[in-house]
């Protein structure tokens, strides 16, 4: 069987869910005729028609608001942000309307908001955002960050079937770089479950999205030094999978969090709070984090490389921690 890219896996999820349920519609800028800036929705217009694949004006607030309204009317809209950076333009609709709707008014918002996030492709300061923490900090949302093609497909299916607003961040660095054999037929990956990608006893490396691969590569290098790192893929950031995280720390007693998002206020903080408050006695060393710098994402390759985490930085931090 041919291998399926991360991008193609997302496209398949959209196809299959739209085939399964006529309540699923897609809207966004250039998603129809063009098939989306990254071609994630290529072929959807041809198959499902313009009523279900809707090219919109450039109006993120309008689009997200309309998706909420469609959800109220019983549809399951999927919204594409052309680049996730532009989610800042509909921040109010997401945080004040979609997120609060069920709690306040008992009105579920079965909307998926998806789009390409992340750096490493020299997209510069306005096409490389990792905005997950803005939404992890907003009660009422779910936040999903898949790293594998399997998860991308299975989690998007779960997101579409979920009655709550789900932010689905697709790491654009992975779109065409990650390829896997996917099983035939329908499968879903539950939201809210992390997974151990590599077992180890010396320390836990928590990570997600593109940084999972950086972490795995670091773990492979560390092994050569005799350091056995356990690598966990968070997959969902909200709700966090406390159990998997705590169980791993209970085994390894050391924790390193790796995220591409900027440092201050990143998810490493929330995890540090979670672990120190719930498993303090399990810790045999400081919680470390390897993250991007606290700056906008710079454009030049030399700058962006310096800005981003990389294998060397992860190895160095893990080594220090293992020897602590």
């Amino acid at each position, binding site marked *: 069987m041919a291998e399926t890219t991360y991008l193609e896996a997302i496209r398949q999820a959209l196809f299959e869910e739209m085939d399964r349920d006529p309540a699923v519609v897609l809207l966004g800028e250039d998603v129809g005729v063009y098939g989306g800036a990254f071609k994630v929705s290529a072929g959807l217009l041809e198959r499902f028609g313009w009523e279900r694949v809707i090219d919109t004006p450039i109006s993120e607030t309008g689009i997200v608001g309309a998706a909420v309204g469609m*959800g109220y009317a019983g549809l399951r809209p999927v919204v594409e942000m052309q680049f996730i950076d532009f989610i800042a333009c509909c921040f109010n609709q997401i945080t004040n309307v979609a997120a609060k709707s069920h709690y306040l008014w008992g009105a579920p918002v079965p909307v998926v908001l998806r789009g390409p996030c992340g750096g490493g492709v020299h997209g510069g300061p306005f096409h490389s955002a990792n905005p997950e923490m803005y939404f992890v900090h907003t009660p009422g949302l779910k936040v999903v960050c898949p790293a594998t093609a399997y998860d991308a497909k299975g989690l998007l299916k779960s997101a579409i079937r979920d009655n709550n607003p789900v932010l689905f961040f697709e790491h654009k660095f992975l779109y065409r770089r990650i390829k896997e054999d996917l099983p035939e037929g329908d499968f879903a990956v539950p939201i809210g479950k992390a997974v151990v990608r590599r077992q180890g006893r010396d320390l836990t490396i928590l990570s997600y999205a593109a940084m999972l691969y950086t972490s795995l590569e670091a773990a492979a290098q560390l092994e050569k030094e005799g350091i056995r790192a356990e690598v966990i893929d968070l997959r969902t950031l909200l709700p966090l999978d406390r159990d998997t995280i705590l169980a791993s720390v209970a085994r390894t007693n050391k924790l390193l969090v790796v995220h591409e998002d900027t440092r201050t206020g990143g998810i490493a903080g929330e995890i540090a709070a979670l672990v120190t408050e719930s498993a303090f006695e399990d810790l045999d060393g400081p919680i470390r984090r390897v993250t991007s710098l606290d700056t906008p994402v710079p454009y030049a390759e030399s700058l962006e490389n310096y800005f981003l985490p990389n294998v060397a930085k992860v190895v160095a931090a893990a080594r220090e921690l293992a020897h602590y």
Partner: protein
Amino acid sequence: MALTLTREQHLELYYFLRLNRELEDQMARLFRQNKILGGLYSSRGQEAVSVGTAYALGPGDWIAPMIRNIGALLVRGFKPRDVLTQHMARFTSPTQGKDGTSHFGDLKVRHVVSPTSVLGDLIPVMTGIAMAGRYLGQNVVAMTWIGDGGTSTGAFHEGLNLAAAQKAALVLIVENNQWAYSTPVARQVPLRDLAGRARAYGIESAIVDGNDVIAVERAARKAVAQARAGQGPVLIEAKTMRMMGHAQHDSAEYVPKEMLALWKQRDPLDRFEKFLTRNRLWDAKTKKEIVARIASEIRADVEYAENSPFPPAELAAQGVYCEGCHTVEADWKRPKQEVMPPRSNVKPEWRIRASGETKAPRHSVHGVHSVKGDQAGAKPKSQGKSLRSRPSAKAER
């Protein structure tokens, strides 16, 4: 002008107008007794807008009221007790005390979307409702309101523009009550008529005397019919006046007394009473009955609200997510097969132009409307050769 409503409808309009007024008067009393939490906003002087517009809708249609549209909620079937328990933060309220004021809705039966406090939010949301309604074959109209001040928000623009691009069945009432808090309209936008906002979207608009419930109802009915017929969104500017402060805390000294005096003469209730009398649609006895009915309804509901418990504290922790407590189900009024492959396939929807050189996807499968491809063509004025290029989109990539 000849009457277009029956006597019963006229009396019903009066009932709602007066219920709106009396309910808010009652709430002002409760506010002074500290029984209402947070702020209290008044629609005194604007009741004809809420009541007249909502009255023009059919049962399957949708509304999303703003804070001064309690009248619309009443027309839509909510009871004074709903409004009272909300404002008094009781467990029996539509939101069980989680939200206040007119922030409540009912997606399943009354088709009411809850407002937020953020001005403009509802316009894209109701556009989505209208788009979904068309997709589901429901033939429904979505109506919402916005203040003069709220028309300056980005959400207003994006929502209404999207509705226009999609020819969504949205009726937007711009309630021009001359003030946005302390700011007069002229400081918000140099437009004489806010109906002019519609021109940015190439959509229909109308201006109506917002203190004349019959004129409002008529204008709204026409707009609703246009929207339902697939002619796209309609904007109605209702000219009216906020007769109280922005909310109870605001004595509104910035409003000139002369202005209030002028508008007091145009009170929508007084005027409608005179209208009813002039047209012999009621007599003193009928009026007395309506007044008595309203008084007793409000009395009963105030009692109900006051006797209602406050929510149990632990409720605060519940309900952030829908975990199956609500169903998400669309009310299909057309065969689902129409939108499923192979029938949903885009191919039949591509329009081949006579000239053959361009093909543009249409917006509506029902033939209700189509976007003319040449609208986007350039017609530079200073050049000789007239140019008719047509934007298009090819199916093949």
